[in-house]
């Protein structure tokens, strides 16, 4: 009986996994088709001949290399700062004693609630005033600002469940707050930090509304403009868009699979200690 239940569960999990894997397969096939085939052939069919030239076109005409570089460094910097600043803030809100912390937490939460499009005009004039228009810092700052609330929210649940005794014993050992934070709290929260890193990475990597609005020079644009490159006034080159999407998802896929293993490592390490 137990065996059967287990295999049913297992079967469901694997079917789900297959469903979640299909989009990637589809995208690969999609990127090898031209417009005619995109609309006329079944979703999961390999066109003959596969049009690898889409990738050549994207790389050569799309000048993807530079955008790629920008995406990488802007995402990296944004993610690092977001996760670190959010960890600081969450620590202060959940573990330290002060009167205004509920209000401050509320202020952060409201940050989740504003629709992106109504921020564009005010932010543009703000960056105009501080001379950051067409400067990568405008993108990094907005990336951090708009992802801080969700990052803090995710961290919150984890920080709240950390045992108090941990801090007590640290204090008894003569730790300072900073030392406690960096030596004890941060390592303890590695799994959730990795989780938020992944979430932030995905958001920043795919962000395009702010980039389009605040950046006008090609030298600071990111990969998402590569997609735009193939949307025309009246027609769109879907195969090339597929190839761009494929190229842009690969690095994040690799990083993700690598980072996920870090989670497991962190957990096993924690388990041994515990």
């Amino acid at each position, binding site marked *: 009986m137990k065996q059967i239940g287990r295999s049913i569960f297992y079967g469901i999990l694997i079917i789900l996994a297959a469903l979640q894997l299909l989009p990637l397969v589809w995208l690969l096939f999609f990127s090898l088709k*031209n*417009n*005619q085939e*995109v*609309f*006329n052939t079944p979703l999961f069919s390999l066109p003959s001949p596969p049009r690898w030239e889409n990738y050549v*076109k*994207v790389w050569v*005409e*799309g000048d993807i290399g530079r955008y790629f570089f920008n995406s990488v460094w802007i995402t990296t910097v944004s993610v690092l700062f977001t996760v670190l600043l959010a960890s600081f803030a969450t620590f202060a809100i959940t573990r330290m004693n002060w009167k205004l912390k*509920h*209000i401050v*937490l*509320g*202020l952060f*939460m*409201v940050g989740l609630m504003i629709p992106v499009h109504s921020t*564009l*005009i005010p932010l*543009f*004039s703000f960056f*105009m*005033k501080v001379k950051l*228009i067409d400067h990568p810092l405008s993108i990094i700052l907005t990336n951090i600002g708009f992802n801080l609330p969700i990052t803090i929210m995710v961290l919150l649940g984890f920080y709240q469940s950390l045992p108090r005794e941990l801090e007590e014993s640290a204090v008894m050992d003569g730790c300072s707050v900073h030392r406690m934070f960096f030596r004890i709290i941060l390592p303890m929260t590695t799994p959730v930090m990795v989780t938020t890193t992944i979430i932030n990475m995905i958001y920043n990597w795919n962000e*395009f509304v702010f980039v*389009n*609005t605040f950046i*006008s*020079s090609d030298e600071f644009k990111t990969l998402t403009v590569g997609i*735009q*490159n*193939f*949307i*025309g*006034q*009246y*027609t*769109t*080159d*879907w195969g*090339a868009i597929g190839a761009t999407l494929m190229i842009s998802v690969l690095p994040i896929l690799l990083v993700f699979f690598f980072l996920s293993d870090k989670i497991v490592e962190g957990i096993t390490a924690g388990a041994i200690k515990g």
Partner: protein
Amino acid sequence: MFKKAYSLLCIAVLVVALALTGCSSSTKEGASSETGSKDKKVTITFMHLWTAGSSKQHNMIVNDIIKEFEKQNPNVTVKQEILENEQYKNKLKVLAASNELPDVGMTWAAGFLEPYVKGNLFAPLDDVLDSGLKDQFVSGTTEAYAVNNKTYALPLELNITPVYYNKEIFGKYHLDVPKTYEDFKNVVQTLVKNGVAPIALGNKDRWTGSMWYMYLADRIGGADTLKNAINGSGTFEDPSLIKAAEEIQNLVKMKAFIKGFNGLSNDEAKAEFTNEKAAMYLMGTWDLPQFTTNEDIPKEFRNKVGFFKFPVVEGGKGNIDSWVGGPGVGLFVSENSKAKEEAKKFVKFFIEKWGEQSVTKAGVIPATKVDTSNINLPQMYIDVLNELNKASNITLFADVQMNPEAAQTHLNLIQSLFGEGVTPKDFAKQHQEVLSKTQ
């Protein structure tokens, strides 16, 4: 814990709000005065939507023109920013709100351009027109960019919208090109009977359905009824405009349009036509390359495509040489540009050079006159250009004619009309309401 947070939050927001508004109003001045440099090096920013990926030929011409211009004007550098349609419109909006428009950019006619003109953001270009450019334009094309008799942009394209059809499918069922609307309905009926989808229509985009409605309005009520209804001198509740709406719903009931058309984009609908699953497709002449020179589409198919003029309705006031169409994008110069003279010079240069090359190199029919006698073009282009010369009237796309607010209502109503979500009477009534409200 969170209860408290929220009860106190509102107060906090208010306090911050007051503080911030206080700050922002005091720092408004003093940003833009130091860049009026004395040396003659001038940079013109030029924002357009012809990306190197999807509009390769357009993009190449643009680059050539810029290079040539910079050579003739060594003190001027032209800096491009290219965005795709949707993003372009959004960015233009944000830039306008902050009074930071590019020196030269692209705009659409009439309703789109009006708010920018009223906000004093576009410079009048009549001086450019009067310096010899006027005669080069096809007559009437610059009017769409005029507000109070001043012209604020100069068009780059001119399009009309024929009905493309698949000659092979027509041949198979012994169908002739319909001359009257009755013929047309017979064609539809025959195709439906034989299990062929008559018309490819992607009405998720809504302007696509609007063209069908406009033609029926034109053929039933004549060229001026719709125009007058939109500019306020007539009414949208004119019987002919209601009748046109009824005819649309009749076509829907006859299953004239492909399955699920209200959920399909124009791209998806076009694919039904190019994959020979639908027999007809009403679209602008900007799609001509797809049916003539585009190598991505099989040659056998391209050879099967013909076009016809929207048939006349018996007893209607419209005439077969009246078209739906008009100029597409045009170039504007920012009123607040620091290099206005150079920008105007660039626009003039661009219009002239573009007119010389756009048809032959990019397949775009320019708004300037094209001499067909000494250039080599596919036959379909020649036919279209001849039709353009014969045209008795070109009615500008309704959503372009109207101001943005009315245009959105119009487009939504079009989708409802096709989806039988609104009666023809209400369709007209709601149009009239929004048009008189936003006049």
